[in-house]
């Protein structure tokens, strides 16, 4: 994938966000009055983001128009990105189901799914690790460092 198009889109989004921070009132609520005010630094940083995002977007736009050859770092490798989406999906489902299924069940399932996604086919070893790690860490955290990981709530 040509990264220059991504640069232009991303630059535009960041410029829009920076303009929002620079112009919109009410982004800071409450607090004491100081010489600089609560929104001084966010606005300075937003101004800088606007400048740098514009520099990147304009440079990429000029190269798109000039149709100059792509440098190696300007190509985004897309092979395998489907797996990345599945990984993010597993992670999102894990977060969603964690309060219901509890840490041990949800983590075991997620670890096994990730191992399969990574191409693992040693089912027994993968299952053993996927069950042992969450069980050991669950009880280890509870007994040793008093961290109570989420429990099954069905």
């Amino acid at each position: 994938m040509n990264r220059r198009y991504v640069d232009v889109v991303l630059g535009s989004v960041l410029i829009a966000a920076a303009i929002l921070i620079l112009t919109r009132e009410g982004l800071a609520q409450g607090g004491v009055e100081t010489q600089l005010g609560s929104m001084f630094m966010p606005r300075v940083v937003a101004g800088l983001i606007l400048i740098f995002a514009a520099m990147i977007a304009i440079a990429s736009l000029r190269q798109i128009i000039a149709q100059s050859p792509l440098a190696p770092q300007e190509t985004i490798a897309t092979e395998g990105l489907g797996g990345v989406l599945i990984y993010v999906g597993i992670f999102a489902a894990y977060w969603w189901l964690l309060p219901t299924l509890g840490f041990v069940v949800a983590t075991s399932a997620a670890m096994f799914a990730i191992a399969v996604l990574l191409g693992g086919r040693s089912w027994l070893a993968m299952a053993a690790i996927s069950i042992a790690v969450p069980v050991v860490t669950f009880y280890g955290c509870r007994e040793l460092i008093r961290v109570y990981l989420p429990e099954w709530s069905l």
Partner: protein
Amino acid sequence: MLSNIIGGFTAVLAPAPMLGIALGVCVGIVFGAIPGISGIMAIAIMLPLTFYFDPVVGIVTLLAVYKAGIYGGSISAILINTPGAAASFLTSLDGHALARAGKAGKALCLALYASVTGEVLATLVLIFVAAPISLLSLQAGPIEKVWLLVFAFTVVGSMTGESVPRGLLSCCLGMLFAMVGMSAVTGAARLTFGIPELLSGFTFLPLLIGVLVMPEVVEGVRRRKTPQHELVLRHSPDPADNRLSFREYRSVFGTILKSTGIGTVVGALPGLGSSAAAFLAYGEAKRASKEPESFGKGSLHGIAAAESSNNAVCGSSMIPMLTLSIPGDDVTALLMGAFLIHGITPGPTIFYEHTDTIYAIFAGFLMVDLLLLVIARFGFRFWMRVASVRTCFIFPCVFAFAVIGAFTTNQSLNDILILLVFTVLGYGMRLVGLNPAAFIIGFILMPIFEQNLDQAVSIVGGDYLRLLGSPIGWGFIALAALSVWSAIRMNRKTRLRALAASQ
């Protein structure tokens, strides 16, 4: 100073710190040795565990992970020609050539001895240089600190990114995310868009693991169809091929000394890191060698230069972080976070407010080198096996530990959501050439900058020109401008060289 150092050794030579160091060394070597998993991942995963340790134990454990992780990278570089850490790329050139010739033992021994020598010498520089620098930086008030931090932002942003605008944009994005939530200066709720969960801001650890660690797992998932290198070892029947003699060590000692010097200087400059140090030292060793053609084909000098320089960076990169509170790269940013979590604020006053702790940490640095030498040397066979563990067993465990690390801070499910969001953001940043390390450094330094700016403005009242009245401040402004100018010049040179090469 001597009494402080002796006091430091007394504190570290106790069962708890020594166990912490031994644990850190083992974890660091394991994570460093497995290709695709870096030492920084190990530090981020170990960080929540150290919350429950004494600050000295916790921090020396993390330092042990850091140092051992850099050395661990050389194991997979030598054995399977796949550097476990970017800095070990050059080690793989000569080390793997030796391993193919049946001399893996010799290459591993040299990598270990060069690493430990480089680390010890750089640590001594850290011990003897850091305190005097902190004395100088004690002269700085809020106005000077504001300019110092401006220098830090510009140097880190301009040196770490793929280009100057991308590096600085990464840093600014980190600064912006740091301002979400309750302002530490005014108490106002900023940029929360009415979401009450954002009032306390983004929790540091999930954000850090999400931006720095998880994208490596995601990249592993993307490359899941790329075959992993198999560990195939050839053993030479001659025992001399599997060890390093004192004569051989002495013959490369000059290269180790010179490369350690290069690594120490490069490490003390923010933004360059261990890879740059290794390339510079390797280039210099090749230039000065009587047999430059042997480099890349199993040269002992090549391994010695790459390993001693990239390990020397570990010690010296702590100098700007401890004395000026400028983390030079992602690992020192992470370690600075660890110091802050343990209630120790890096900066000029650290040597006066936490004298015992800081000298105990220095002593811990040297003990890490000793234990690294012992544990790595006697566990060669085990570490060789570790280097070939498949990612389908390791990455699911990293996922579980990352989730536990994120959850542990506040025992809140929102932190797991933050981890997910910043995993996606961190991976996206890599795809578009933004720098995660600059992002994290911006995130860590922003609150310190804002507090100092508020104090500086209170001092000058309405006369803002007085902000430009300090000679130390002028120095930092000049350094900031110089860093941006030199980064632009360096990028232009690289671009022209690439253009010339393509033609």
